[in-house]
């Protein structure tokens, strides 16, 4: 990629929109995952008694839904990203590619 191409793409509004939207989404979702996981770890380290709260019957305690919830959260967050990327980001990328080809 030569410098004129770099400058051309950099100046495109679609490119700026792609970069801004993608990084906002990626960092937001990363932050949610990091806060959820390290929150969980800190809870284990500093407030383990929370895990003894019984949530159902006599044997199902908070730890079980919390753990499974974290696994589901990981899956759902990746799903949100893929959905958004497949529709919006890919379209912007295609526009940039088309314009560069001309």
């Amino acid at each position: 990629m030569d410098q004129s191409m770099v400058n051309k793409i950099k100046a495109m509004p679609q490119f700026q929109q792609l970069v801004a939207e993608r990084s906002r989404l990626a960092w937001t979702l990363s932050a949610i995952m990091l806060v959820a996981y390290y929150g969980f770890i800190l809870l284990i380290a500093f407030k383990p008694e929370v895990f003894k709260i019984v949530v159902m019957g006599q044997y199902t305690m908070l730890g079980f839904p919390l753990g499974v919830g974290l696994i589901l959260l990981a899956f759902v967050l990746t799903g949100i990203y893929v959905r958004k990327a497949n529709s919006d980001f890919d379209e912007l990328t295609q526009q940039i590619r088309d314009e560069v080809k001309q």
Partner: protein
Amino acid sequence: MKLMTSLIGLAALFASGAAMADDGGLFQPKTIMFLIFVIGTLGITYWAAQRTKTAKDFYTAGGGITGFQNGLAIAGDYMSAASFLGITALVYSSGYDGLIYAIGFLVGWPIIMFLMSERLRNLGKFTFADVASFRFQQTPIRVFSAFAGIAIVILYLIAQMVGAGALIQTLFGMSFEVSVVIVGILIIAYVTFGGMLATTWVQIIKAVLLLSGATFMAVGVMYLSNFSFETLFQNAVENHAKGMDIMYVGGLVKDPISAISLGIALMFGTAGLPHILMRFFTVPNAKEARKSVFYATGFIGYFYILTFIIGMGAVAFVLGNPQYFSDGKMIGGNNMPAVHLAHALGGDFFLGFISAVAFATILAVVAGLTLAGASAISHDLYANVINPNATEQNEVRVSRVATVVLGILAIYLGIAFQSQNIAFMVGLAFTIAASTTFPVLIMSMFWKDMTTRGAVIGGTLGLISAVAMVVMGPAVWVKVLGNAEAIVPYSNPALFTVAIAFVGIWLFSKIDNSARAAIERELFEAQFIRSQTGIGAEGASKH
């Protein structure tokens, strides 16, 4: 034709080996299933060998794997026999702690998805070093990446081979040495002849088998518990010596530093494993790369939920059953709860299935590791440093030789470490990955001012500190070397070593005022545009 004959010969050799191995001989369910798997995968290797001509075919299966297939293959690469048997065994012995551990292995995947997967695909070609060397100086960055990558691969390989030997010995009654040699020969056959295409399909088949087997077991456990978690947990609590303690946080996580440190090693280590990173170059574009991570996250997360149910099921239905114990100890060792549960649920036939699955699991992971190690040698060291004028044929030939050498080395190391305490090795591999390849990759993709000097010095500091702190920590200093007290009190030092690597990269890039550094900073824009748009990225080959 010659290839066909040698593969058939290989299959016949294993048939006779398996026939001699056990008193039940060739007609035991597990032996039959084992042979079906071996013959099937060798057939795939033959098919893949016809399609593996170029370097691109060998390293990345021509870049033509779909996102769904790659998601399964990633899951197949990542769900090792150690994680299936190890995590169910951990749940069996400590209950809820097993789930905490399993979660750590999953949470790296969303981060890989959001920050790395598309960029990796858009920038890379065959190995992760391609990504880092986009704007950095070839020789130093390739040598550093190859060394870090090979160190991770070898540590992981030793753990897998020793585990494989012990497991196959228990399941099929062959000697440890024979088991390790069989694994070594099979993966050499898969990888040298079939390259990434055969490796990918072995991983896909293994993932499907493992997920089906684990699903069947979890459903069986829930069936016996009237499909109620409450009943399952009640049975488990009443059966376990620790009683209610298995339902909440136990002794796995001792202090906050160790807890956070373990989390960092698992989360960011996943994002730095060479055999995992390499899988991103097998798909045709960034869209398929992100789809792979989505499917992989789903399969791996589902699998870890199953392992928790299976572990609890083993407490409820295996613990206390005299059939599976002798002298108060579990037959076959502490890692066997899942295997015995398979027998309790589905008899000899299902035990045979799970044994064959465990074997397939080992092969798939070892094949992926060997291919990643061989690529580091042939692509990064040979073709880009030692002999930059090498033809493609030369490069592929070197990678095949490297595969054979690594396979033999794996056999040798497996036997050499047979009776050593190797519990620390996977942890060390994750810690090194989190402190070397991960920081170098992420910084090179996100930080404009990074330079070659920063990458190599920072990454090397991460490597040295990771090795030193693990060796001086309780896992090696006390448990392996027999000293009374560890110099580094933390069982996992990733919190410090990852920080050392990042600060090292930052500092040595900042103070780098060389002319070369200025060029590298300028190249960031072109790299950034390619990483975002995929313009100029490697496509899939056309056959």
